[in-house]
């Protein structure tokens, strides 16, 4: 590692006082990413936790990696399955193959690179303009954005969505830590409304590009489970497949079990709030049970079918798990008070499933539900704090009397 340190040391004069001064934020960001910063407290005694912003972000990245790698395999698997190219009879041997991985990696790694270049470009520009170090906030957003996109999303659309999210979702509010909306979901929402034909429907979730001499298998349909539910009221995918993640969908959202693993890791390290995740689960189960109760009173058989599915279907299909674990728990845009987190999480699960079932224009509602609750989070916090003040004032009066 010494030689990397030497490179940073040798190039430091050029960016602190030399002619490459505009590049200082970039230099600083790369250096602190690889080495422990040598900043010392200038006065007094300070106690520092080992967990700084950078460590927090890296922890989330670690939690995301299993779902990402699975997504890479899965997009290759879905492609090869659609083309009828799977040759092994054993299930998991068909899945974890080198071809699947290679196909997915060639698609997804450029998406990740483009997202980081576009987002960090904006971040570094603003860091230079406002004369502060590059914040680590984009580290996670940059990985989340490609994971919420369909496999065939053109790279330039991802770049534009990312730039929009960083610029309008984050920098105008003052940068990392000041944003109202979750930047990754802002990017997805922008892409969803700007390029709907690339973000919804049943053509986009599986790459079905045909090479010479290739053909789609008979009866091929690219619809996701939620898309099937919305049109027919039932699905051809089993809940077990969805739990493992062998279904079409956005890159990172399909494998519930690996997301669960990431969620447990986040809770164990104390990075993600278990209150938000648990209350979102409660909200989703509550609305599912209500739907089950009212299902018989629906007129159309599709609606009846969709409303009467058991609650665990809602948890494994679509992006409930991914959004709850990685999006809702974003510490900046979530509610900050402990009681507020319960309300915030509950309504994310509740509204997400409600939009998913009731609004045919949006087969998946988690994105909109989380963005909506992001906006509501300060309001929730306000009333929780007001409530605390009121309660304590009452206690004060009692003790004075």
């Amino acid at each position, binding site marked *: 590692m010494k030689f990397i340190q030497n490179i940073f040391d040798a190039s430091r004069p050029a960016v602190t006082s030399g002619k490459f001064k505009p590049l200082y934020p970039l230099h600083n960001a790369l250096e602190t990413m690889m080495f422990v910063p040598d900043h010392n407290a200038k006065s007094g005694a300070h106690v520092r936790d080992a967990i700084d912003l950078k460590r927090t972000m890296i922890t989330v990245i670690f939690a995301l990696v299993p779902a990402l790698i699975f997504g890479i395999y899965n997009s290759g698997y879905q492609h090869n399955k659609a083309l009828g190219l799977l040759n092994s009879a054993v299930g998991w041997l068909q899945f974890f193959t080198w071809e699947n991985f290679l196909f997915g990696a060639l698609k997804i790694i450029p998406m990740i690179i483009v997202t980081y270049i576009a987002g960090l470009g904006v971040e570094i520009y603003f860091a230079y303009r406002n004369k502060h170090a590059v914040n680590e906030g984009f580290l996670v957003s940059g990985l989340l954005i490609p994971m919420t996109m369909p496999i065939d999303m053109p790279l*330039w659309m991802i770049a534009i969505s990312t730039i929009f999210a960083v610029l309008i979702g984050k920098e*105008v509010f003052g940068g990392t830590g000041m944003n109202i909306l979750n930047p990754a979901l802002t990017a997805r929402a922008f892409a969803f*409304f*700007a*390029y*709907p*034909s*690339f973000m919804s429907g049943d053509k986009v979730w599986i790459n079905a590009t045909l090479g010479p001499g290739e053909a789609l298998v008979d009866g091929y349909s690219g619809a996701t489970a939620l898309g099937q539910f919305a049109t027919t009221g039932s699905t051809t995918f089993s809940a077990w497949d969805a739990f493992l993640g062998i279904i079409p969908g956005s890159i990172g959202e399909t494998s519930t079990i690996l997301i669960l693993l990431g969620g447990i890791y986040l809770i164990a390290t104390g990075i993600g709030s278990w209150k938000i995740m648990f209350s979102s689960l409660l909200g989703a189960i509550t609305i599912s049970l209500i739907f089950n109760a009212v299902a018989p009173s629906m007129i159309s058989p599709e609606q009846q079918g969709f409303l009467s599915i058991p609650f665990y279907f809602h948890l494994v299909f679509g992006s409930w798990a991914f959004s709850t674990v990685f999006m809702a728990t974003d510490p900046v845009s979530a509610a900050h008070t402990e009681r507020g987190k319960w309300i915030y999480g509950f309504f994310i699960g509740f509204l997400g499933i409600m939009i998913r079932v009731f609004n045919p224009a949006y087969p998946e509602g988690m994105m909109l539900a989380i963005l909506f609750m992001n906006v509501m989070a300060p309001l929730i916090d306000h009333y929780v704090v007001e409530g605390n003040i009121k309660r304590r004032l009452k206690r004060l009066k009692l003790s004075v009397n």
Partner: protein
Amino acid sequence: METNKTKEALFSKKNRKLLSDPMNINNPITVQVLGICSALAITVKLKPAVVMSLSVIVVMALANVITSLMRNMIPNRIRIIVQLVVVATLVILVDQVLKAFVYDVSKQLSVFVGLIITNCIIMGRIEAFSLGNTPWKSFLDGIGNGASYGLILIVVSFFRELFGNGTLYDYPIIEKLGLYELGYHNNGMMLLPPMALIVVAVIIWWQRSKTPSLIEKD
């Protein structure tokens, strides 16, 4: 009105400021934040925006002049009603002219021509300016505010039409440039009202970074 009784020259520095101030430091949309609703509603395409701007300029200038002429006769308690009658008359005139000469655009603008009556800029300028100033000055103020309202409208609709529809003044510019073959796609969000707000917000951002005197101290 050209025979104004004041000794001031017609285009004195002060009078020129009446025209130029609304363009920047006193812009009705980006600084006074008036007339936002119509800025969101009719900026999907350039053509309706241009027609709307012209209509607002005409209505504003004439309404300002007429109320300014009557300013010493209007009883204070019923002034809003008088202003409304003046503006409404002018708006109906403009609406009839549009229907007669540019029917298709008039169809697109639909109810928003009628809603010029409720455009906050017009009532705001009458209340704030022409009730206390001479007709010529009021005329300049009306032209200035109407034009700067139109300027923002046209800038916003330029971006919305170009990126949302791929056309400029109904000319298919993106198609002619051959960008669709390269994989370019129109941005559907530009056609939705939220994007108009964001474009206006970006203009406000840009304007304030250019003129720091506009930034509020908190």
